[in-house]
């Protein structure tokens, strides 16, 4: 409830850039009126941990981008990453965002059984040669 309100008000104030009383009242009213989904609540600790990881992912993404720029990653493969236990749909969304945001990895699919299918690019041919695609000449 509070998390929804804070997120909506943040977007409202970024959109309007206006802190007059009228605008605050309108923003709070809109934040309360808009429907919200009923999702399993997650602990604040888990949420903060993922948000911290997202903040860290920004410099990591730029480092990976420069790596891809200067050291070509010619090979690609798919790996499986296990989902941490007891993840709410919101945290799974943030996990998918986190993995896909960094340019070397993209989530292909989230499996309900508790794992992500992740596509990644790598510099060297992985050990299991049959599993990778090489660059076409």
């Amino acid at each position, binding site marked *: 409830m509070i998390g929804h309100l804070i997120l909506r008000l943040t977007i409202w104030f970024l959109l309007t850039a206006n802190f007059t009383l009228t605008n605050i009242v309108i923003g709070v009213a809109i934040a309360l009126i808009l429907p919200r989904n009923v999702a399993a609540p997650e602990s604040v600790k888990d949420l903060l941990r993922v948000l911290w990881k997202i903040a860290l992912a920004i410099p990591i993404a730029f480092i990976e981008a420069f790596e*891809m720029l200067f050291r070509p990653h010619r090979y690609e493969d798919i790996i499986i990453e296990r989902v941490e236990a007891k993840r709410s749909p919101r945290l799974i969304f943030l996990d998918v965002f986190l993995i896909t945001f960094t340019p070397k990895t993209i989530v*292909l699919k989230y499996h309900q059984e508790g794992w992500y299918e992740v596509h990644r690019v790598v510099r060297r041919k992985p050990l299991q040669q049959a599993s990778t695609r090489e660059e076409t000449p």
Partner: protein
Amino acid sequence: MMIFLSYLCIGVGLVFWFWGTSYLVGQRSVLYKLHSLSVSDTLGSMSILFGLLLRRPREWPLLILALICLAMWNTMLGYVLAYCTARDANDHKITTSAVPGEFYE
């Protein structure tokens, strides 16, 4: 100093744009192209926006909102495109088993 930094960010963004877009005309798989596209579209555009933020700090609310929207929408659309090409990706075989957070260690 700020002007130099803003030009640097915009320049890096433009390099990312052109470098990432150049891969689109290659012969590689759609999934491979998505990686370079995320460099150009997401990170390149974010870098340009950050450069603009340094030049026009008064417009920070809209530029921050644009940065958040760009990161969120581009990334999730990348996921949607990857998901849609999943059938094609089944040509690959799963190779490794990784534990959560392995990529970031």
